[in-house]
């Protein structure tokens, strides 16, 4: 198996691992921050996978398309996180001080 494919599988596998870890803690943890971090970890996993697919060995330049997708994905993820945090602040503002 070529060096490139091996690297791809290695990075891609890690990506899948990250994704599932993200899913796990998204499902298990209730606090908003932890869910958000979990979502971003999931995102990181997918981006990992895409970057791995883009890799074509050390000689050939990488496939630019997945890289572009990752950049777009990051911005989208940032926006979503920001909005979710703002929601959190909105709720916190009225959080009854029960604890």
């Amino acid at each position, binding site marked *: 198996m070529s060096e490139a494919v091996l690297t791809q599988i290695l990075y*891609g596998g890690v990506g899948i691992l990250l*994704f599932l870890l*993200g*899913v796990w803690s*998204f499902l298990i943890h209730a606090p*908003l921050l932890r*869910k*958000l971090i979990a*979502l971003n970890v*999931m*995102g990181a*996993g*997918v981006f990992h*996978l*895409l970057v791995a*697919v883009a890799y074509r060995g050390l000689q050939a330049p990488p496939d630019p*398309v*997945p890289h572009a*997708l990752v950049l*777009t*994905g990051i911005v*989208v993820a940032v*926006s*979503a996180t920001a*909005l*979710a945090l703002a*929601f*959190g602040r*909105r*709720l916190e503002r*009225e959080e009854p001080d029960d604890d």
Partner: protein
Amino acid sequence: MIDPLALAVALPLLGALAITMLPSAARTLGLLAALATTAAALWVTLLVWGGGAPRSELGGWGTPLGIALRADGLAAALLTMANVVGLAVSVHATGYFGATAASRHFWPLWLLLWTALNGLFLAADLFHLYVMLELMGLSAAALGALSGTREAAQASLRYLLVGLLGSMTYLLGVALVYTAYGSLDLALVAGAMTPGPVAWAAGALLIGALLLKSALFPMHFWLPPAHANAPAPVSAVLSALVVKAAVYLVLRFWLELCDGIATEAAGLLLGMLGAAAVLWGSWRALRAERLKLLAAYSTVAQIGYLFLFFPLLAATPAGPERDQLITALVLLALTHGFAKAGFFLAAGLVQKSTGHDRIRELGGAAQSLPAVTFALGLAGVALIGLPPSGTFFAKWVLLARAITLGQWWWVPVVMVGTLLAAGYVFRVLARAFTREPTPRCFVTDARTEVPALLLAILAALGMGLAAHPLTVLLGTGG
């Protein structure tokens, strides 16, 4: 050349941008953008109606490098419904929000959502669909919280997070598709896909993610609070269009990507979840205390009906029967779109005039707003599935096909669902017959009431008779 496909996406965006910069002119600009967008969408539909297959390669690179927008019968049908509903909601909103602070926030977000919807119907690129899904999710969640209550904020946040979970799953599916087939264009991928673990996994990820967004039982838990607590015009859009967009993608993937890959077992699974949604949703709607919660649960049920078609589609080889099934499925989706939008708009007016929407105490309000009550009634007729609504004929086709295929067990599901629906609709309508004094005139506030009434009429009377034009549009005349 002027490109209606690009316009249908760009115009609402332009409107949103203009309003962001000039919030003081929100209503005027918003209404202008709504009219322009609807015009562009209808233009697209006319092209399809004329037998064309409009397609535009954005950037002029062509697939696989570039992104393409395209419209076929299926896209055109939903595009038309979405934009007609969108226009009606916009007109309604000018009156509903007035010039409140909420209106300044409503208009740009609503137009961004509209952008996403049109994009979702027209885009032919898997990753572009991802961006559109995110645009839809974010703007929808923000809109849902506009009613300002804590419940609304909580429900919308949950909706946002669940949506993100779906998007991430979808994105993983896209990554897998690109890995396996080296392209993102729907048609190219569909051509490259062959039955096998990779195809199944990709299909499962993409469709599974969309099931979460289309709130198919048991992934519906986020929907009722989110739709019930949003401001009525927003609820209308969420229930009638946003969920539909997800279902539309499921259907498209099922028919195009997974053609020959989706197994009958998968179809049966979707059907069973649909059946559970029909029964559970209708039951909860029957038990609901509040009008908008009732409507929200009814949406859960109505989505279920749409998925009852999948096992039949999976078991029906391509041909006139299959075409008729697809037509009926689309007919059902469109009818529900109009009906639910009208129902929510009307419910919002009841809520405004009484200050609450507790079904028990509706009497007076319903009585004093005849047009609104009629809107609720006609929309209700379509939700139950009584003639001459489109739902009736769609259910006819569904059951006839189920019996022919020997899958008779769907019959009791549909009938029980129908009777439960009759129960929850007439629970509301019965309140309209009280000994209150007679209202003096039929319509009290045209700007808010007429859109609701027209949508309801469209659902209860129009869509039934529109079945034949729909077959022309879908090219399923048989």
